[in-house]
């Protein structure tokens, strides 16, 4: 396996684009990433497209019809919320394997009015959905419960979860790509209506459309293009191992713990080496769990980590400098590529008002239920 470098990032502001086709959003992000890499489709040898709700609609090929058709292999992937990062991994593997020199990954999604209440539920007997009658398979409940498990284990409080949302909304003020840029007080967050306890409205990611893209190439080529190439130190993907309770209660913890262990090993980097983390805060409760799952603090210490504001930009280990999904929105297929772009911009010193100064190593984490977890570590 060869060393792989990221040489281009592109993203459109997340939001609502009902008048556009999702392949147009995707093509726009792709053009931005290619431009950033000073390339065109002519230079691209493989295209991987991630889109969830329209995963069967050949979005990858439709992107090429918009911006350049060269006959290269195109792969359309789907992996729940990790769809975009799985596409990124396809591009990574294409280059790392030695089969292709340059690959383009594009993540896109048009959410319509579905949001995270869509999917889940599942078929019941006799044409009635079991949703809300025998519990809940929907994301808000699942991540509510996951947070409550942390409360049970460590005495974590509602206020601590809310503080995470306060931080991310504050960070978003400096991110022009974020769907929402609204600063909120702890009271604003805690007094908002509850969606699924302990998460209130502002502790849940909003629905939106979006697209993001990345250009990957060999380290050798990257060195010809730039004096400061960004290395993709690992591209790790895991699924659920067998665990007793997982068969009923999606085990977001084991999945991420396994992935981070593998990723740190593969990258030869530890949690202590990270300068910033973009992690999957689909709900405020999720971010709390992942502090520990990613080893940013010890088991049971996540509440203290946010109390001490260590995960703010300027703190010991800034998390979701972008504003996170809580502010940016979460267009499923786009998210995984977008959070890698964010890390890339910090390492390139291009993150504007939210820049983590001197960032040299960053981690991007995504988890999709059902389940898939990706971790990418970029390194200057």
């Amino acid at each position, binding site marked *: 396996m060869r060393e792989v470098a990221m040489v281009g990032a592109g993203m459109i502001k997340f939001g609502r684009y009902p008048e556009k086709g999702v392949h147009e959003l995707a093509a726009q992000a792709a053009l931005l990433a290619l431009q950033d890499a000073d390339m065109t489709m002519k230079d691209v040898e493989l295209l991987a497209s991630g889109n969830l709700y329209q995963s069967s609609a050949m979005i990858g090929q439709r992107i090429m019809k918009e911006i350049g058709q060269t006959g290269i292999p195109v792969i359309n992937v789907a992996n729940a919320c990790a769809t975009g990062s799985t596409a990124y991994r396809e591009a990574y593997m294409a280059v790392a394997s030695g089969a292709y020199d340059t690959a383009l990954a594009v993540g896109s999604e048009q959410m319509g009015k579905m949001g995270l209440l*869509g999917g889940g539920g599942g078929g019941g007997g006799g044409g009635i959905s079991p949703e809300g009658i*025998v519990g*809940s398979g929907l994301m808000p409940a699942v991540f509510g419960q996951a947070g409550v*498990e942390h409360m*049970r284990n460590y005495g974590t409080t509602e206020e601590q979860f809310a503080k995470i949302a306060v931080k991310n909304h504050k960070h978003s003020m400096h991110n022009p790509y974020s769907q929402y840029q609204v600063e909120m007080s702890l009271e604003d967050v805690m007094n908002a209506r509850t969606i699924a306890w302990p998460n209130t409205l502002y502790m849940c990611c909003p629905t939106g459309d979006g697209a993001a893209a990345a250009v990957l190439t060999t380290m050798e080529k990257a060195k010809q293009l730039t004096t400061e190439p960004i290395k993709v130190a690992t591209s790790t993907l895991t699924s659920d191992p067998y665990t007793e309770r997982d068969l*009923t209660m999606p085990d977001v913890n084991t999945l991420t713990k396994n992935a981070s262990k593998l990723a740190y090993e593969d990258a030869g980097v530890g949690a202590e080496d990270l300068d910033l983390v973009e992690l999957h805060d689909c709900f405020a409760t999720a971010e709390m769990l992942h502090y520990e799952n990613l080893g940013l603090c010890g088991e049971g210490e996540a509440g203290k980590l946010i109390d001490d504001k260590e995960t703010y930009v300027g703190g010991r280990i800034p998390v979701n400098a972008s504003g996170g999904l809580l502010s940016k929105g979460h267009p499923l297929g786009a998210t995984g590529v977008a959070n890698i772009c964010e890390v890339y911009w910090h390492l390139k010193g291009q993150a504007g008002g939210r820049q983590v100064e001197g960032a040299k190593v960053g981690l991007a984490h995504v988890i999709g239920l059902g389940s898939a977890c990706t971790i990418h570590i970029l390194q200057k």
Partner: protein
Amino acid sequence: MAEAETQGKQVKPILPFLHISDNPDEKPYLAGSKCKSCGATYLGARMACSKCFSTEPMEDVKLSDKGELHVFSIVHQSAPGIPTPYVAAIVDLPEGVSVRCNIEGVEPDPKNLKFGMPVEMYTEIVHTDRDGNDIMAFKFRPAK
């Protein structure tokens, strides 16, 4: 229920692992399967053991109707048409199986729910389908 059956209508489970006997005197129960090789127990059926990969047919097991509350959330907003609020919980059964369920019989407020509290399963007809069949669901409530 007995009436519906006489008319050729049936009582059907909301999920396949809720076992309803033909014998009206037998209480419905959650059906599990247990791997003969490693003992891992599953809610419903599996083609092979997810833990040890054994493809030997599993043993059918009748899961306990008593368990304890592991965790929960109070859901205030759900999919369109789903009445809220409700308690969405994970209950651990003594066989080493967890089950996703609603907790009824308490106001849906965190203060009414204690981690580890004993709960018991009961069933209820929640719906009548297009063909006139009654749909039976399982729920849990604080154990008496």
